[in-house]
């Protein structure tokens, strides 16, 4: 039913509506221009165009390959004789080319183009240079270079030891673990979506979150690291009263908590135990969520009759190849980063919750 309405035109119209509504509400175009034309922000503005472009380029080839795979799956006879690429090939064509000159000339061309781009960029835009360093005069906002703004933005949601040290380390180790936990042998050396659905969604989600945090840090965080929507004036005198409370306090002092007699949660050791239970529960629920995502067949989900856990046969075969160690490693990184980050972001921004687990040694 829903599928009939989701096509490229409806998506385009909805996107245009959102952009239009936003544009009507922009109060200060100049502020927007100041932020996006700051020379040091040019790269992230470029990323906003480059990432969709290259995503399109990859997806286009993936879709072409997927069509080929589908037709070959349907026709085993053809599968035996087909050269199995979407790139054209005729009998008699050499399968390999000489690197000299066919690759070297492409590389040479690339260096020439990059050099020209760099020259134009360097002639037209100057590298920023502020006043001499002055420890007595704090820059406001005091921002890291754009590629670290994701980390800086994370400081809002987590304590510095998590945002600045633990999270980056987990992300790096997680990235390194990626090839070792991906037990799917297909899609090695060609673009495909249907054979690597889960792996691509997971990586895509991580990449998108990273870019999103940088965009928030660049375009939305103004003086005092206060949230200004794009188009709002950066008010240097703005003060935001932090109403953030810890989860256990929120529950203990709420009307709901009081009627249930949960006031004791505000005190040790109950708040410690409560946080422990919440975090443990988060890992369990998160793990179940990823498990569902791993094998579910979205096409077969229905509400009448209720079927929320239909299994995809191919994804299940992939899961069978996955060892317990691979599975648990993946779950750890997925829940700790891919899920914890957006969950904490929503808790903080929408529900003004500061910590979910308060202990004498650390707070999460």
């Amino acid at each position: 039913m829903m599928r009939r309405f989701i096509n490229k035109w409806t998506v385009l119209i909805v996107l245009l509506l959102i952009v239009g509504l936003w544009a009507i509400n922009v109060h200060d175009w100049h502020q927007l221009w100041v932020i996006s034309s700051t020379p040091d922000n040019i790269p992230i503005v470029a990323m906003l165009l480059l990432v969709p472009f290259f995503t399109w380029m990859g997806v286009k080839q993936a879709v072409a390959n997927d069509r080929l795979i589908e037709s070959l799956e349907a026709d085993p006879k053809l599968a035996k004789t087909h050269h199995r690429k979407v790139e054209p090939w005729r009998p008699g064509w050499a399968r390999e080319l000489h690197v000299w000159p066919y690759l070297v000339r492409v590389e040479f061309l690339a260096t020439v183009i990059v050099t020209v781009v760099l020259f134009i960029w360097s002639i037209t835009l100057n590298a920023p240079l502020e006043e001499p360093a002055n420890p007595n005069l704090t820059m406001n906002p005091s921002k890291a270079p754009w590629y670290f703004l994701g980390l800086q933005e994370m400081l809002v949601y987590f304590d510095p030891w998590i945002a600045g040290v633990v999270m980056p380390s987990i992300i790096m180790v997680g990235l390194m673990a990626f090839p070792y936990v991906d037990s799917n042998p297909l899609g090695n050396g060609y673009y495909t979506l249907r054979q690597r659905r889960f792996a691509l969604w997971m990586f895509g989600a991580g990449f998108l979150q990273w870019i999103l945090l940088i965009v928030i840090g660049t375009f939305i965080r103004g003086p005092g690291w206060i949230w200004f929507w794009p188009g709002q004036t950066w008010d240097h005198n703005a003060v935001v009263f932090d109403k953030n409370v810890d989860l256990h306090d929120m529950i203990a002092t709420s009307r709901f908590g009081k009627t249930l007699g949960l006031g004791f949660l505000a005190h040790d050791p109950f708040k410690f135990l409560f946080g422990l239970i919440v975090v443990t529960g988060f890992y369990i629920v998160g793990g179940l969520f990823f498990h569902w995502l791993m094998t579910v067949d979205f096409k077969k989900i229905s509400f009448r009759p209720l079927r929320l856990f239909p299994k995809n046969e191919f994804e299940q075969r992939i899961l069978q190849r996955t060892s317990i160690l691979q599975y648990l490693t993946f779950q750890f990184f997925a829940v700790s980063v891919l899920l914890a980050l957006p969950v904490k972001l929503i808790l903080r921004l929408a529900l003004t919750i500061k910590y979910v687990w308060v202990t004498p040694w650390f707070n999460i």
Partner: protein
Amino acid sequence: MDDPKETKQLTAGDETDNKGLVTRVKEGTSALKDRAMDEAKEYKDPQETQLWKSIFRVSHDRSDPRNRSLAILSNVFLHLHPAKINRDAVRYPFTWGMGGITFYLFIVLTFTGVLLMFYYHPTKADAFRDILYLEHDVPFGKLLRNMHRWAAHLMVITTWLHMFRVVLTGSYKRPREFNWCVGVVLLVLTLLLSFTGYLLPDDQLGFWAVTVGTNMARATPMLGHEGPFGAQLGLTAYNDVRFGLLGGSIVDSNALLRSYIWHCIGIPLVASIFMAVHFWRIRKDGGISGPAPVVLESEMKAVKKK
């Protein structure tokens, strides 16, 4: 008197010699010219010259497959390439060329960076003034600094896009898992290179960015004095990991010097080693991964039980 015959012969000889001097010069010149022309014809093909052969060892543009292969194999800069590659691998949409561009940007940054080093002193007294000098007095100094800055930012972008492509094509899969890990290390080194360079102009931008950045190090578990278990392990602002990074408890002259040395010597050196491994492993793992023939879902084999 002498024998008239002899005299005659002498005069005759003189005569012929006199006559012959012009002719001989003419003849000699034309012979020399012919020889020069002949030799010049040999130089017409630069690949046949001794100079060329001594440098390149083999001719490059012959249609002869052996020479084309030798052009790659016998060249120190090109020998990282295989002699032949998958015919579809040269298509731009497959690789996006991002890995190669990243490496080229590293070279551009090394080149502009060395030139910048000629004009820069990593001291509190000179650093900022050197940038002003570079921007206003050094010929093309501003262009040089701009190019170094933008190439650095571009390198971060191309590194990310390179990783993105490797994920999309599944190129991190067996047997390239380890090279992916080397790549992740290179990503970290690229970011660190960029970050250490940020402080060097010694302006407000770099100073506060590095202050914010290194303040996070205070909170490192067990290594920073404000981090979990830091105080219990006896750490203070004067002996924790942040102190080690900055060479002091605030961002000052020692931090500038450390930043400079990490930026110009330490990290480039480490990064070069990792790059060497990265490129070498590409070859050892069988070159770039594709475009490979597609494998069907029905052809997926079960895992072998040992």
